[in-house]
């Protein structure tokens, strides 16, 4: 399956990754090869086989609605690159406007 460099760059943008033109070229070939490989599954006759819901043959795992201890604020923010007033501090986000 042919993957264009534009498709590679589109997916990269969505994943917040930055590639050089050479990398995009290289990955387009690699991604195409991966998809070709997966494509082989289409050769199987799946008539009458239900789609798989999960790799495990298990369903329904629940918690009861009971409060468990949370992290203390200091602990929650421990790995934050920056914080202020008990909050994570991030680059300014412009909403609406």
């Amino acid at each position: 399956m042919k993957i264009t460099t534009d498709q590679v760059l589109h997916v990269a943008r969505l994943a917040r990754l930055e590639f050089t033109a050479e990398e995009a070229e290289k990955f387009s070939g690699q991604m195409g090869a991966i998809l070709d490989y997966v494509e082989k599954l289409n050769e199987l006759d799946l008539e009458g086989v239900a789609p798989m819901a999960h790799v495990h043959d298990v369903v329904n795992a629940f918690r009861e609605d009971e409060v468990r201890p949370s992290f203390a604020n200091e602990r929650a923010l421990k790995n934050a690159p920056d914080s202020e007033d008990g909050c994570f501090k991030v680059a300014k986000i412009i909403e609406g406007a």
Partner: protein
Amino acid sequence: MQWEMVVGLEVHAQMNTNTKIFCGCSTSFGSDPNTQVCPVCLGLPGALPVLNKKVVDYAIKVGLATECKVAGMSRFARKNYFYPDLPKGYQISQFELPILEFGRIGVVDDEGNPKDIGITRIHMEEDAGKLIHPETPGCNYSLVDLNRACVPLIEIVSEPDIRSAKEASQYAKKLREILIYLGVCDGNMNEGSLRIDANVSVRPVGQKEFGTRSETKNVNSFRFLEQAIEYERERQIDLLEEGGVVVQETRLFDSVKGVTKGMRSKEEAHDYRYFPDPDLLPLVIDDEWIERMKGELPELPEARRARFTSDFGLSGDDSDLICQSRDMADFFEQTVKLHNDPKAVANWIMGSIMRDMNKEGLESVADAPITPEHIAGMLDLVKAGTISSTIAKEVFDHMWATGKSARDVVEEKGLVQVTDTSEIEAIVDKILAANPDEVEQYKGGKTKLMGFFVGQIMRESRGKANPGVVNQLLKAKLES
């Protein structure tokens, strides 16, 4: 050209569980930032979500109340996008296999005919965190509070069956009522427990295909919902009639100016690349579970309205108003159980109680300082002739202010109605003696002065004289 508007609503309702949908952190509102967080809702590597069973219970109830089909098997999906309020880089939601589909809510169209608004689907998902933008000038950062991240929501998506702003607000109000009756959502629109997005498009009457739609977010009251939809209708029609085109976009409602505004479109914002979340197992709901939830359903607003009209003889409007909140309808029924005069009870609820609740900004009658016992006790005293209905208003105000029972208020304030004929006769004589001119005029044919005399006597008795007795005595004396 004649235009027709087409509207569909997406309603996000917060489920009022004690804990989040995929972890045991508390969902209580108003705590310090980032104090109700854990590895799961912070999106720390390796943390695994486990579904809160109560959210499923609640969703099933909402589905049953809106006549949805409950899916035997549903599953969770990842909705991928980058935004700082979403620490994992995706929101856990449901996509191709939602828990509920094909429901309906009945409304009345603008011509007064009943019609159904279809519900396409209802699915469960987690809420995102809260972004705070400090207002200090030149501030170049934002703050993130993740207490709300992972709080359980259901999203209720309607069919594009709505044709007017009124139908839209009716649908949303009925939905809110159902959620509150079920006890699964507090319905508080100011705190964001219920959020409405409106998809609006217009098309020439008779055209089958839908026009391009806009999606208006940030609508936090029913009045604003109607305003936003009306505004969009006008805006889109003007645009099309001037030869322009409607752009598919997200818009925000500005409640101060009553207009919608286009949001800066996020590049590729709608490429969510949904896929099944491998961290969560498929959800299988059997008939036994559905039946159990059916057994827990309370009487729903529609049924209760009908019963209030048929059993208690309330008018449609009165029973509509009282049944708007489950608490109020409960209050009404409890009061009627104690004092069997539904009309009188309804009048006190719609008059004094609702007035004072509005005045004090109370959302629920459960928070009011008076109980069904107060109202029933007061009505008992009116019925027994101990107080007049005029005095009852005074008694009500005292009960509201002090929380004391009607009997205590009446005794303390000395408000017992005087029915003793001799006592009233003394007052009548006194008033007639003090106003000889008016008595002459009355006898000369000016019978309208009756009201004047009654007023004077009631004032003299400080409202306590039994009006029937006063009228009788007065007539007898003046016409003798």
